[in-house]
């Protein structure tokens, strides 16, 4: 056997830069170890073990991302594993974002999932795998690798959505997400095929070079490919008109999982959108920018307006996440370094806000995690003043009030739009920010101004805040407020993280 293997090696295996894929390996390896340990242990592990293990794995990945960041700053961006992945500031930015979402997500999920009767390692293992997919998507230098990351992320999320086995809505959310997500993946894949047909490559670096050097005489194939890619990615970022799955899926999934979906999954889809369109298809800017323009306007307006008329808080936040996707699309539409940095800043700020918001919705809601009617928030300020204040910070940040990270997030995307002379888009963004503000104020009013009437009126359930969730909320509030006062560190980080494509060796 051995002498056969020792024969001359004629198959050229790609050089693998192991140090650059350590984040992915850490997350996948951690997920596998967690799964096997949980399966082999004869007794159930103490409560919270899985969540804290996930936090440790994600924190280790975060530390490694810091090393990769300094490596990228020192020796410049590079392309690794035969051009399949790119290692640049952009990829590291989304590693950081994904790890933040994993840490906060598992801190919030810990007690909440147990409270609604979901035990076991599965949600955490799947979250880690979804995080891996998100990182692969953000660093993908090749459309096929991008698709691979997207599927890793999506399949884990389909299962996560169904992780509440006792609630029908959770199953319903999963099957809706799965069927519609499968459709959108098919669109994306067909788009990749058409772009390959038009350019002769799936590698974004090669595509960018090809489009810069050649003018396609018959570009119908290319345009159809771009359109299909936009449909596939538009579905994942939940832009109108591809948003119809969002309210049902966000409402049905277990609440901590919803927060993870709205942060990591959305951000990863934006990463793919930015890398493929802003850099890869830069030559076709004039064709895809108007489409993004329409998507951004529709998402902002439809998301804000539909959010206002909801009575369920989770549906409200779901529609508001659609409108936030619209705001990030404003940054994408600018197709400038400034706009991209603004979109990155927005995605990171939104990660903290949305995870915190959904965590509080979960804490205040009933143990069954079933309905989250706005009336459960009535008089929260007198029952749990600190929790009400925390929620207020997140809501004001989402509304874009100064002294919160949300203000700078909106400010940067709108000023990026103004700088590229998209005045109409900037005005529409400001108008829809005002519309959306009404929604957040409605929740704040419910918490502070409307007491349950009389003694007979049922007070909401007793709200307790476990230590892990409190730690997560403290982190999220600290980020939201500190960045709201001094955003310079984070916006510099975002400016250094604008994607670049480097040809493989």
């Amino acid at each position: 056997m051995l002498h056969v293997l020792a024969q001359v090696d004629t198959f050229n295996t790609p050089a693998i830069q192991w140090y650059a894929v350590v984040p992915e390996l850490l997350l996948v390896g951690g997920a596998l170890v967690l799964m096997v340990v949980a399966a082999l242990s004869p007794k159930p592990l103490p409560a919270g073990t899985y969540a804290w293990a996930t936090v440790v794995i994600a924190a280790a990945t975060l530390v490694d991302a810091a090393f990769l960041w300094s490596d990228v700053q020192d020796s410049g961006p590079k392309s690794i594993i035969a051009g399949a992945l790119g290692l640049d500031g952009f990829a590291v930015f989304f590693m950081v974002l994904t790890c933040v979402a994993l840490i906060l997500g598992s801190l919030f999920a810990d007690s909440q999932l147990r409270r609604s009767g979901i035990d076991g390692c599965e949600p955490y293992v799947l979250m880690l795998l979804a995080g891996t997919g998100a990182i692969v998507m953000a660093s993908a230098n090749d459309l096929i690798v991008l698709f691979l990351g997207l599927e890793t992320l999506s399949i884990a999320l389909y299962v996560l959505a169904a992780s509440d086995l006792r609630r029908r809505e959770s199953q319903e959310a999963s099957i809706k997400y799965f069927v519609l997500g499968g459709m959108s993946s098919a669109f994306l894949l067909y788009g990749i095929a058409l772009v390959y047909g038009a350019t002769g490559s799936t590698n974004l670096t090669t595509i960018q070079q090809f489009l810069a050097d050649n003018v396609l005489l018959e570009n119908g194939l290319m345009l159809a490919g771009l359109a299909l890619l936009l449909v596939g990615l538009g579905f994942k970022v939940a832009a109108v008109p591809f948003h119809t799955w969002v309210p049902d899926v966000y409402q049905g999934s277990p609440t901590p999982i919803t927060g993870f979906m709205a942060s990591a999954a959305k951000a990863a889809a934006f990463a793919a959108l930015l890398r493929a369109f802003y850099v890869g298809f830069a030559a076709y800017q004039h064709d895809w920018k108007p489409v993004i323009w329409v998507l951004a306007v529709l998402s902002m307006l439809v998301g804000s307006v539909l959010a206002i008329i909801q009575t369920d808080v989770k549906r409200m936040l779901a529609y508001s996440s659609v409108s936030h996707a619209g705001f990030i699309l404003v940054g994408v539409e600018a197709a400038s370094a400034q706009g991209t940095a603004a979109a990155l800043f927005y995605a990171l700020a939104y990660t903290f806000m949305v995870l915190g918001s959904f965590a509080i919705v979960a804490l205040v809601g009933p143990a069954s995690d079933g309905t989250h009617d706005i009336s459960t928030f009535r008089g929260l300020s007198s029952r749990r003043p600190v929790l009400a204040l925390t929620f207020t910070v997140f809501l004001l940040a989402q509304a874009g009030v100064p002294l919160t990270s949300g203000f700078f997030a909106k400010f940067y995307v709108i000023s990026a739009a103004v700088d590229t002379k998209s005045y109409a888009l900037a005005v529409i963004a400001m108008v829809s920010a005002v519309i959306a503000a009404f929604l957040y104020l409605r929740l704040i009013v419910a918490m502070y101004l409307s007491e349950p009437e009389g003694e007979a009126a049922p007070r909401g359930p007793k709200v307790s805040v476990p230590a892990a969730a409190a730690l997560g909320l403290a982190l999220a509030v600290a980020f939201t407020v500190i960045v709201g006062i001094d955003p310079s560190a984070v916006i510099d980080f975002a400016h250094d993280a604008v994607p670049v494509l480097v040809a493989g060796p």
Partner: protein
Amino acid sequence: MSQFLRGYLLVPIFILAAVALVAVLLGIGSLLRPRKPNPQKAIPYESGVDPVGDGWSQSQVRYYVFALLFVIFDVEAVFIFPWATQLELYGTFGLMEMFVFIVILALGLLYAWRKGVLRWA
């Protein structure tokens, strides 16, 4: 028609050929065969045994897990067979790659086993 599109001309030709083939075969059959209807012939064919129950009967949900595991290991075989024919070419690198792949799948089986999925109870 451009040269590019002409390359795809084969696709509609194949579709037409497929439709025509089915039409011709069924047509010849219906022209040649004797026509003697009887109720026994209308019964669904179940390997020669008289059919039991109706066609829409539910199958046990327990089979689902086995079906799932079967698909996983079926797909594994799809990857392993082509790899095995080229093992010498891939060398140690290929061996390690497949080792990693199989170990990850085996961990999945281990998990399924510990979760009691393989027990028929």
